[in-house]
């Protein structure tokens, strides 16, 4: 061992106070982060009113300069998704949007995208669809015209032939579920059990809507009053606003349809266990139930509680108890996924070697009970509030592109930005008692769905033992050799 560092180890070992002297060994600063007097961030998000334009046809766009690189991004958020209409219908609209404008010959759209080195994606969610086109700044206005053209009149005929239905399954899939990716398989298994015949659970497997139906769905949903745009990049904002107005000028459509409110779903006692066998080295687990629509008054406490419990792959109770203290998994995190005008889900996802899976499930349920039964510590609340406001919330508006995207989505959903504006204050006001109340209101361990994908025989054969971290057992049974 190098001499000076060896000496440091010894001195650290024998330092009487347990904390190094302020100013540290040889001048090292070892002040605890809470005592560093770190200043509050002086961050103010851009004023959404200054970014927003509204066209005569009802289209709302947020235009923001973002000159970090010579790029321009156009994003459209549509208030329509796979749950609107017959199964597969909006998927086919998505396929039409991918195919390109009707006026362009097959392949010409792809050629144009390739020439511009563009990124183009269409994602059809349950309640919303997002279309993004991103190009270098030199191609910005050509791309904008193309973007407007494809939104207004995509190629329905070719798309319906290609089908909006899910692609045929591979050898490893069954019932349309792809178990090659075990996490995706477990989530699908969970969602099938949760949503059943609800519009959120229906997939358009094998269904091919007619071009006329697809065209009608497009006209209803992809309309200027039913979408918002985010436009951000390295441009003169005034010119960008003029260009956006010109590109979408003359596009008329129906008034925004009354929002469809989807019925709630609810799990029932006792718990449901759904499984699917997959020949993998690990088992994947999704535990959870529905998340009803969350009133504004509950939102902040729910978010703080969720962060304390299962902040994604960061320090949280689930992460500490299953990964750090027991070495059972690489991750155990919560996923709070509210719907827009329908139910969402609240799930806890983890995975691990087969002999660890039962204990992982056990540890997860113990933590779900604990957060209902006890109030979080002061430190836990401090960490969660700081992370939610100074981290996640601030990140959503940190750049022109981030802000434009966030505002466009907020406008589509709420028609204003009041919720996001009040978010930091609402988070800071949350009390420990409100966190516990949120846990009791939104976590119901007695009626959860437990979805497991993996080597089921090995998972079932393992004892749910509390022998952390099971290394000895792993070594002596030789199960570790399976990965060789």
């Amino acid at each position: 061992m190098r001499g000076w560092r060896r000496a440091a180890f010894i001195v650290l070992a024998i330092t009487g106070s347990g904390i190094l002297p302020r100013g540290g060994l040889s001048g090292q600063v070892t002040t605890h982060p809470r005592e560093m007097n770190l200043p509050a961030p002086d961050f103010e998000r851009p004023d959404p009113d200054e970014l927003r334009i509204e066209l005569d046809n009802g289209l709302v766009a947020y235009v923001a300069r973002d000159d970090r690189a010579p790029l321009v991004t156009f994003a459209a958020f549509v208030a329509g998704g796979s749950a609107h209409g017959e199964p597969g219908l909006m998927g086919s609209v998505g396929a039409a949007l991918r195919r390109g404008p009707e006026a362009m010959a097959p392949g010409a759209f792809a050629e144009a995208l390739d020439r511009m080195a563009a990124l183009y994606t269409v994602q059809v969610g349950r309640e919303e669809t997002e279309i993004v086109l991103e190009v270098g700044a030199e191609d910005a206005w050509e791309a904008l015209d193309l973007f407007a053209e494809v939104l207004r009149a995509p190629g329905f005929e070719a798309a319906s032939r290609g089908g909006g239905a899910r692609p045929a399954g591979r050898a490893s899939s069954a019932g349309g579920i792809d178990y090659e990716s075990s996490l995706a398989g477990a989530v699908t298994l969970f969602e099938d059990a949760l949503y059943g015949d609800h519009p959120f659970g229906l997939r358009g497997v094998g269904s091919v809507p007619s071009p006329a139906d697809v065209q009608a769905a497009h006209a209803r949903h992809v309309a200027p009053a039913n979408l918002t745009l985010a436009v951000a990049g390295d441009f003169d904002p005034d010119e960008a606003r003029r260009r956006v107005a010109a590109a979408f000028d003359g596009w008329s459509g129906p008034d925004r349809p009354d929002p469809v409110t989807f019925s709630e779903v609810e799990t029932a006692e006792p718990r449901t266990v759904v499984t699917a066998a997959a020949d993998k080295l690990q088992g994947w687990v999704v535990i959870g139930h529905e998340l009803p629509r969350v009133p504004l008054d509950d939102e902040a406490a729910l978010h703080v509680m969720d962060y304390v419990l299962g902040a994604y792959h960061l320090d949280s109770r689930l992460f500490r108890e299953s990964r750090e203290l027991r070495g059972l998994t690489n991750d155990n995190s919560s996923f709070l996924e509210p719907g827009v005008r329908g139910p969402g889900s609240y799930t806890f996802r983890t995975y691990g070697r087969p002999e660890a899976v039962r204990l992982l499930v056990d540890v997860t349920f113990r933590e779900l009970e604990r957060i209902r039964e006890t109030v979080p510590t002061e430190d836990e609340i401090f960490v969660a509030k700081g992370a939610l406001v100074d981290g996640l919330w601030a990140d959503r508006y940190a750049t022109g592109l981030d802000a434009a995207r966030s505002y466009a989505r907020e406008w589509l959903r709420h028609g204003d930005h009041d919720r996001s504006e009040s978010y930091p204050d609402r988070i800071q006001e949350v009390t420990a008692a409100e966190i516990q109340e949120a846990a009791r209101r939104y976590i119901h361990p007695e009626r959860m769905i437990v979805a497991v994908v993996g080597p089921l025989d090995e998972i079932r054969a393992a004892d749910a033992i509390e022998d952390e971290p099971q290394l000895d057992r792993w070594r002596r049974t030789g199960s570790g050799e399976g990965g060789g």
Partner: protein
Amino acid sequence: MVRHVEIQTRRPRAGFITRALVAAVALGGAPPVAAQGYDLPIREHVLANGLRLLVLERPGDPRVAAKIFTDMGAIHETPGLLGAAHFQEHIMFKGTPTLGTSDWEAEAPIRERMWEVEAALIEEKNRARNTIRRRGVMDDFQRAESTPAIDSLEAELEALEREAARYRESGAMKRWYQAYGGTGLTATTEQEYMKFDINLPVERVDLFLRLEADRMSNTVFREFEQERMILVEQRYGDLNNPSTPYYEQMNALAGVVHPVFWPEGYPTDFYEYTRTGQRELYEEYFVVNNTTLVFIGGVSLEEMIPRVERYFGWMEPAPEPTRTPAVEPRPAAERRLIYRNDDIEPRVEFRYQIPGVGHPDRPVFDVVAEAASRHLAETLSEEDVAGRVSVNTRVVHTSRFGVPGTINLEVTLSDESDLAAAEEALEATVGWLKAGPDAETVDRAQKTLRTDWYRTARDANALAFEIGHFQTMDRWQTLPLYLEARDDATPEDIARVTRIHFVPDNRSVGIARSRTARPGVSEDGS
């Protein structure tokens, strides 16, 4: 000696890469830096103790991407202990005497005793090697895994860990970043580097300095056994992808000597990590003169110098860490792999060894990959072969190295009977490259690379990674020159480098096929 280098450039405008003037302000003899046209006004300051500070200022940015790079990675591992560098990264999340413990005074003597017990355990295992037969013989010939003395020492070590665990406060190296608005908290270990990174509000950049200086100086090796299992979990995650063993076999075929081609650890390796071995890695490589800090955002070099001095300036420089002496010999014959497996799609792949970053020809291979991908896809389409094309320079998870790596031209097929046709398409594409591709294809390839780079440059975290990565591979000044060289590459350059490197003796061919060949498909896929 303190060095201070500054590069100023104008940003490129759309469609026209400006050749900007560069002003290099060199204190203490730093060399002037050549002109470049990408918008990379990186400023450098090197502390007297050797710590390198790189800042790319974005005035007004409310946040800062902060990264600490250590010039150490998997290429510094020992066979039988593969994955140890990655394991060290995990251990470095376990806190220090001032973070992660409820009572260091009580914990410290237990930790000291653990070093002693583990040293005795290692000695006993070495002494008993003929009894326990852990000398690389085949598994089914192993004798007892243990001896009474080993059992006793392992039990004592476990008891000490349990005793010390009473004082642990897990998660401390993440928690305070989270509390003060940190996002994008990650750590990565690849072949040539380890990094820890965070994105913070600019006002709180001191938190990064305080935590990372502590992490690189005072890590306490807590939760050692738990973390060993997490490494197993991560490795299982990789192996769940049925293509992973195929790629590892290809790496083993393409590279004979250099550790850049080694996998991320075999299950048997995970047994063998010791605190002592990990501490040797930590002691040798996590030293101030082997470290680079990168900041991009609303901070300036002038602000950062005194701050970095305050938190890192007390550290003494250490002897220069050991560098791997391995040099991959140039292949003398074509190598061929037949991978029989029913779980992956059939495929054909050509790999050629290529130079590392720092060699003037390396940037050209990025253009080669992009152009080859286009031509290969077109050729397959013309031949009515259904398959996916991937042309990349990846080895394990990384695409660029400071040492020779490979360029990989892969065709993944829907139908195994197309293996021979796919190999012909690969041959045709190689021939097309050697003949000098058309200028339009090269232009498009360059535009794609340039636009992709802009996406990287827009993201402070991604850009900070590239700057730090180039520093560990070669030097950060290479990055803008590398980007410009890609733009400047001509069809003749492509013909020249492929004629040199895309030769049969420098080629490894991989063929993946089912265990039972279908009618009409020969053993090698032809």
